[in-house]
């Protein structure tokens, strides 16, 4: 720790702090454009100038360390001033220079109202310019379907360049030419290839990069902001949903150090148009092979008629990837009251089950824990597309000092180098038997992290693979007191919550696959769109979009998406998070728990709650950990590994393949989105180009 005096206030900060951080610790605000906490220091905007006692000129506080300051002549702590006339003058000068070439087009600029330059010009600038020459003109660049450019506005902070190179790991962007002619662009103006590219528009302190899909649609001050959580993958990124009236206008990341830091993937951000397209806005009933719009009463009556004539063994329920804990709990109670054991929330056929303990299906190491790992083995997963923000953490860990990283499964570009061990489970067996050199690196590590993806688990021999991984984890010391390195990476937002609730087949119950292949006569489908249901069964689909599930349905109950209801989601780490309602569901669509409550009444099995609060009270009484919002209830990884290791089993020969075939089209909301379709087409093109 080092002492430093900021504007007369002495503070004690770590010596590696920069002056900017020290000033913030002392409560002084420093304006900045190029500096960003999570990016490398560029020091090129000069907005953060402060006066250091003893220095002949103002210094850029973002690039000057506290430990670089000289003490006073009698050993006093170094002194900086952030409010002196010199600093004020320096800031005014820098601001005047920045504005020399910045167009005065705030009224037509999408950044207006959320612009760093605008705000700081108001706070630190002067009201005149002495520049009488012409302003610089720069041609706009094409950067793909997500980022609109207006390069006249660029102030060359290079945040976008540093983000793509450092955080996203896809170094597409650069600053060409020099001096006044400097231009930010991608190589030959190709579309950006990162799944995190839209973050650069958030980072842009001016209106040079704005979000293309939503451009010119709103002003930031018109929007109602709702803190929520993302359901596009199992990471559960913290988001803010901005809505105007009934419509969600945009989704922004929210800072959450434990999960997504401050980034979100493009899918999380840009499915906004998917929330209003292809929506189911009224109940439908299939008559003579055709779906016809119906009233809620008609739909419920049709269900009741069918359910009453079917024995509980021939009724089943499957749950999709976007369901919140509340409706899954309601469905579970309903099915219990009907005596139905055929309940499954694992539409992809994964073998994870609460039977082996909670530690057997959580990402036990937690996402921030990735940064503590000193050796990483990824089995059957492509974290870049299955959980982009987990991949960002692994990359962050890799940048901090490369640990040994290896992968068994699809050989894909993860944005960091890794040792590719092999494609199939036999490689895993080889590794476990110690015939592969990487085992030594795992054994030598203090906190080895083994990530198992659904590509390894959603297959017939998944349990054998999981068991082998558990044995490997025990062998290399990945599960022990104080470090639980055996981590399962999920792809579905609802999955961990469902497993916590025990939504797996009961005694003699059928799995989702068995139910879909004709094991039941009446199938209640709560938003499962990634599963093919064989003809024959009477399918009740409760969901939001006219996707695969709705096409196969006999009765459709329109429900609310995650932005239209308050729901609890548990992410892959077991972190319980709450999504909040930002808008209302369209037409006659209702919140899921309310639909199930109403249906239970018609079926004569009234669920014991009349409000969401009553439901939650009941839920928390049975499963207390759901009440601990924003926290991870740690699971016993050692016992889970022990339980899994004992299973054993033989491997199949097929290679491990990631379940995410197309990152942009993994769920019904994304498939309804035109923006995602465009991204998907572009990504396919880039892939073809790369393959050439």
């Amino acid at each position, binding site marked *: 720790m080092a002492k430093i005096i900021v504007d007369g206030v002495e503070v004690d900060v770590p010596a590696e702090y920069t002056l900017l951080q020290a000033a913030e610790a002392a409560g002084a605000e420093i304006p900045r454009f190029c500096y960003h906490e999570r990016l490398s220091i560029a020091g090129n905007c000069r907005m953060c100038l402060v006066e250091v006692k003893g220095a*002949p000129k103002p210094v850029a506080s973002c690039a000057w360390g506290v430990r670089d300051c000289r003490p006073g*002549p009698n050993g006093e702590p170094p002194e900086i001033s952030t409010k002196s006339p*010199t600093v004020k003058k320096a800031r005014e000068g820098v601001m005047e220079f920045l504005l020399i070439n910045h167009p005065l087009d705030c009224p037509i600029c999408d950044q207006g109202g959320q612009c760093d330059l605008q705000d700081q010009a108001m706070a630190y600038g002067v*009201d005149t310019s002495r520049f*009488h020459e012409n302003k610089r003109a720069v041609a706009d660049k094409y950067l793909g379907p997500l980022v609109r450019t207006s390069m006249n506005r660029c102030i060359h902070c290079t945040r976008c360049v540093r983000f793509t190179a450092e955080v996203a790991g896809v*170094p597409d962007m650069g600053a*060409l*030419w020099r001096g006044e002619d400097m231009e930010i662009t991608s190589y*030959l103006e190709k579309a950006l290839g990162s799944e995190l590219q839209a973050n650069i528009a958030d980072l842009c302190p001016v209106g040079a990069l704005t979000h293309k899909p939503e451009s010119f649609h709103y002003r930031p001050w018109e929007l109602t902001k709702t803190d929520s959580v993302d359901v596009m993958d199992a990471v559960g990124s913290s988001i803010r949903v901005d809505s105007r009236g009934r419509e969600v206008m945009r989704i922004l990341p929210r800072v959450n150090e434990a999960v997504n830091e401050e980034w979100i993937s493009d899918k999380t951000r840009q499915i906004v148009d998917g929330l209003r397209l292809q929506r189911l806005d009224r109940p439908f009933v299939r008559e003579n092979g055709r779906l016809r719009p119906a009233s809620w009463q008609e739909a419920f009556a049709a269900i009741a008629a069918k359910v009453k004539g079917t024995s509980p063994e021939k009724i089943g329920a499957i749950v999709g990837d976007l369901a919140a804990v509340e409706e899954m709990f309601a469905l579970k109670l309903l099915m219990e009251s009907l005596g139905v054991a055929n309940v499954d929330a694992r539409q992809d056929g994964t073998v994870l089950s609460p039977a082996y303990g909670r530690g057997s299906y959580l990402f036990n190491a937690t996402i921030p824990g990735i940064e503590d790992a000193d050796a990483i083995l990824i089995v059957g997963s492509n974290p870049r597309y299955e959980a982009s923000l987990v991949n960002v953490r692994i990359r962050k860990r890799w940048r901090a000092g490369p640990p040994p990283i290896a992968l068994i499964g699809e050989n894909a570009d993860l944005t960091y180098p890794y040792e590719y061990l092999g494609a199939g489970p036999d490689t895993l067996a080889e590794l476990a038997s110690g015939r592969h050199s990487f085992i030594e690196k795992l054994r030598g590590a203090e906190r080895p992290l083994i990530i198992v993806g659904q590509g390894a688990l959603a297959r017939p021999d998944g349990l054998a693979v999981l068991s082998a991984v558990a044995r490997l984890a025990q062998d290399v010391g990945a599960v022990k007191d104080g470090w639980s390195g055996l981590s399962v990476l999920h792809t579905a937002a609802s999955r961990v919550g469902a497993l916590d609730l025990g939504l797996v087949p009961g005694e003699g119950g059928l799995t989702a696959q068995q139910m879909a292949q004709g094991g039941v006569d009446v199938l209640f489908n709560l938003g499962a769109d990634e599963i093919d249901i064989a003809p024959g069964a009477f399918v009740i689909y409760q969901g939001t979009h006219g996707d695969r599930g709705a096409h196969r349905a006999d009765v459709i109950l329109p429900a609310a998406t995650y932005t239209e209801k308050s729901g609890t989601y548990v992410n892959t780490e077991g972190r319980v998070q709450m999504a909040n309602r930002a808008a209302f569901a369209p037409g006659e669509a209702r919140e899921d728990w309310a639909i199930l409550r109403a249906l239970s009444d018609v079926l004569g099995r009234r669920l014991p709650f009349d409000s969401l609060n009553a439901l939650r009270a009941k839920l928390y009484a049975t499963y207390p950990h759901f009440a601990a919002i924003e926290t991870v209830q740690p699971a016993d990884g050692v016992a889970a590994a022990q339980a899994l290791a004992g299973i054993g089993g033989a491997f199949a020969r097929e290679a491990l393949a990631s379940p995410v075939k197309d990152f942009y089209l993994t769920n019904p909301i994304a498939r309804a989105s035109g923006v995602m379709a465009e991204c998907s087409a572009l990504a396919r093109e880039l892939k073809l180009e790369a393959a050439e």
Partner: protein
Amino acid sequence: MAVRKLAPEELQPESFVFSPETEAFAQQQIAKYPPGRQASAVIALLGKAQEQAGGWLPRKAIEAVAARLDMPVIRVMEVATFYTMFNLEPVGKYFIQFCGTTPCVLRGAGDIKKVLERRIGDQNHVTADGTFSWLEVECLGACSNAPMVQINDDYYEDLTPENFEKLLDDLAAGRPVRKGSQIGRNRSEPFEAVKTLQDPSLYDGSQIGAWRKRFEEQAEPAETGEAEAAITSVPQEARAAKPGAGRAIESEAADTPAERAKKGETPISPTDQKEAADPSRATKGNSHTEEGARPAPQSGKSYVSTPSKPEEGSPVPASPTTPVAGTPPSQAETRRDGSDSKPDVVVDKDNKTS
């Protein structure tokens, strides 16, 4: 800076492959740096690739360098576009870099430039036969032999329009040319006769150690107790020589009327006031624009109070809008239109300091 751009697609070659020579050079350059730091060789490789491609860098060459150094193409592109020595468009067989910096211009580079413009045409333009192209560059560091140009790798100095024309003729015809000075002087020796550095003692070795010898001779008389006196004169308590050295000067507070009033003194002495009001002592800046060419006066402060029609009169108030320094508030003529809400902004009355 000249506008640089990538060569149009039709001029770009289909492919670029490192020649064995370039490859050997690349290996040698990469070996200079620690393993994993091969990207440090990017400038050297781009230079060699430019040489191989005939004096300019096609897009494919940039990509080849990126592939060779395992760098993202955009990073190599950044380097190639940053340095003006990398030509991104084809150049002539003889690429003339014409020095247009002050010393050369003073010595007649303007005439050389006229020759270039007449014989070759505009900058960055290759003659029809592909022989010449030229570019004006900043100082090439041969000012003593100004004016000069660099043609490919060599300097051609002491140019006159006549000998430069001849030089170009010779180059075009493939005749041998003389590098360096075109008027026959040896490097940058004086042009007429050598007048300096002629003392033979400079060259006979007698100067070796002469300075030290003189120093020792002069130091002899100092053995008079001066050293002891110097030692005793050192103060017992060590003290920093200049505690404020190098520091920003921070006086208590400025000697302002407000400070004086606080101390109970007269805020402004009548003599000061009189002096301050003397117009002959006012500092006055001069416009860099000509008197007649000056733009119409604009306040630039508030568009609310700016009349839209010029005939309604000058938008700038005739009287001072901020009090002259030292004027008591009761005598000050201040703006009453609300535009004085920013007291720290001083109206630039006749819009001169621009």
